[in-house]
């Protein structure tokens, strides 16, 4: 997922360094990944680990010296759980047009009235693009313009975060019940935008009508994959697979890692991504799915609307099928709906099927609308279940 952020950021003129802030333990897998992308995009990348989850602004504040080293004119902040065609260059130009000194730009996009309630909603003054009001996940309708979780800040942002930090420290001293860590947690949206910047004349919104989506659930990954492949089709068609003599049949946008082995009688697509070292057997059909690194799909399998995890195996004539939860294509600006895992009756809502890593699925079964946790070896068919 983050590869796309890095790629977009590395193409902004004047980009010096990319910092990743997270609370994951630094591990080999991350290091290898960073080394590879540094090579690929020729840009400095550093990972900064939070000692605990600090919230977006809390993390920024904690590492403010790192961020400000080299005295940048401005810096981007991107949430990791979003995807899209990030128009960072255009955003920067917009930001620069708004003058110098302390000012901040957020990326906004359109949503439906109903769906806007699940996002941060932005009200602006039309001709100046100044944000006059901002609210997180309102209960009633406020605006169809929503925040994409992508921001461009002047260094002065830290004054506002510092202010919020001080306020938190004071509040906490009267509140003995509070968890100690919460005093360092600062939410960019609530503590900075809502309480300080909205209506201050310093916050602007830049609109994009390009593809954008949150990826909070695995279901959204297939939707996001489709859009990334569509973008590739336009910007990097050489990355997508083409039909060729003696090779598997390709329908629509399909990405196959060069190291994957695909039998010529297989049929893939549309919207399929095949990862590194994956093996796809004879007569396999894959549609609207992701097959991750080192997975093995045996003969005659049918994989629809599913994610097959790393190093998993699917036996012959088995069917792995999920139910897509794509946004309604007939509604303009509809975003992917992320339903709760369970409905009101306590039953699993049908969604895409996800096989975790190192999962073994036997031959001739069906796994329908299910989530299979890593390292499971199934012995039969499953429908609408979470397999622990």
């Amino acid at each position, binding site marked *: 997922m983050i590869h796309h952020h890095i790629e977009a950021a590395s193409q902004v003129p004047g980009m010096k360094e990319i910092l990743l802030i997270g609370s994951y333990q630094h591990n080999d897998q991350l290091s290898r990944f960073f080394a590879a992308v540094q090579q690929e995009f020729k840009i400095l990348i550093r990972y900064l680990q939070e000692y605990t989850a600090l919230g977006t602004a809390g993390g920024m504040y904690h590492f403010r010296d790192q961020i400000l080293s080299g005295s940048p004119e401005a810096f981007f902040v991107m949430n990791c759980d979003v995807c899209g065609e990030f128009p960072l260059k255009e955003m920067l130009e917009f930001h620069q047009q708004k003058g110098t000194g302390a000012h901040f730009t957020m990326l906004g996009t359109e949503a439906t009235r109903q769906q806007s309630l699940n996002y941060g909603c932005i009200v602006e003054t039309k001709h100046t693009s100044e944000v006059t009001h901002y609210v997180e996940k309102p209960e009633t309708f406020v605006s169809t313009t929503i925040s994409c979780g992508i921001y461009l800040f002047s260094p002065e942002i830290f004054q506002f975060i510092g202010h919020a930090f001080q306020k938190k420290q004071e509040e906490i001293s009267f509140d003995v019940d509070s968890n100690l860590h919460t005093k360092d947690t600062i939410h960019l949206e609530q503590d900075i935008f809502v309480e300080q910047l909205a209506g201050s004349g310093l916050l602007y919104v830049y609109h994009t009508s390009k593809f954008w989506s949150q990826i909070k659930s695995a279901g959204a990954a297939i939707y996001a994959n489709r859009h990334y492949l569509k973008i590739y089709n336009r910007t990097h068609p050489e990355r997508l697979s083409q039909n060729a003599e003696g090779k598997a049949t390709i329908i629509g946008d399909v990405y196959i890692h060069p190291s994957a082995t695909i039998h010529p*009688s297989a049929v893939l697509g549309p919207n399929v991504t095949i990862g590194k070292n994956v093996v796809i057997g*004879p*007569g*396999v*059909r894959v*549609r609207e799915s992701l097959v991750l690194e080192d997975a093995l799909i045996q*003969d*005659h399998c*049918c994989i*629809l609307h599913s994610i097959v995890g790393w190093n998993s195996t699917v036996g012959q*004539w088995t*069917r792995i*099928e999920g139910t897509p939860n794509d946004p309604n294509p007939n509604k303009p600006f509809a975003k992917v709906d992320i339903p709760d895992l369970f409905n009101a009756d306590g039953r699993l809502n049908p969604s895409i099927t996800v096989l975790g890593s190192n999962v073994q699925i036997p031959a*001739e079964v*069906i796994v*329908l609308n299910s989530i299979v946790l890593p390292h499971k070896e199934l012995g039969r068919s499953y*429908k609408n279940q979470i397999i622990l």
Partner: protein
Amino acid sequence: MKALILVGGFGTRLRPLTLSRPKPLVEFGNKPMLLHQVEALAKAGVKHIVLAVSYRAEMLEQEMKVEADRLGITISVSHEKEPLGTAGPLALAKDILLEDNDPFFVLNSDIICDFPFEDMIAFHKNHGREGTIVVTKVEEPSKYGVVVYGADTGRINSFVEKPQEYVSNKINAGMYIFSSGILNRIQLKPTSIEKEIFPVMADTDNLYAMELKGFWMDVGQPKDFLTGMCLYLTSLRQKSPEKLYQGPGVVGNALVHPSVKIGENCRLGPNVTIGPDVVIEDGVCIKRSTILSKTVIKSHSWLDSCIIGWRCNVGKWTRMENVTVLGEDVVVKDELYINGGRILPHKEIKESVPDPQIIM
């Protein structure tokens, strides 16, 4: 000798297949269900078979005429104006049955087994009374009406409907041989032979039970049709294994018509019957299913416990299971999943049927 086969009504339990063809003509083991009985009767020396039918049955009459000529016997249809139950049709066909003094057979039409007609004649002549019932052993007698009889003589004492406590594990197998005297007990009106005639005959020591050896199944509904097919193929394996398919990719017993075209890397069986002119494309797996004539099963599909009607077209990467029955000329699009669907004739299925249901 003569025989009367109780064909009865529309075969609603075997819909959607019986919406296209009368039930006796639905192929079981690549042969119309009724023909299994007719051929066995002819082999036992029966010269005239009466089909007791309660609906207009031109198709049945025409097709059976051809078989009658081939076998050198007479088949006539006795048409009931109103359903006469299981005994009434005997009264309706009285004139034919009384043409000679020989005992005659009466059969329910949905029965599949190794028909023991010659043994029945011998058994019946041996005890010399009015009637003989064939009985078969079942595992769960509480679901059926059971027959209580003397183990050494075969003389029937009583019938017990759905016994709560174990009294016997033998049930009426729906095959009888009667002396002509029975016709004096039956009037031309709706009557049940099991409930109204047999108990009276048993009370006067006129009814004997003969135990069936080998398999038996009432194949009047899809689930039992498939179970019966498994038993039938197992029996074929023992009696005439040369009739079973020996080609590549076969697993266990499979009965495949010589005109069937089979692609590469298929797996057929166990317990599969494939009718004339069926096309099975590459990489198809079929288990425990019957495919009727002129159907096409496209590549990489997987079928288990299905009955696929005539002239169907099943798409690629389709998965069908759990007693799915397709009527005549059904088209199933590619990559669908059908679980226990009953699909009416001439339907085109474009979406999966994930839960058992009837698609009108």
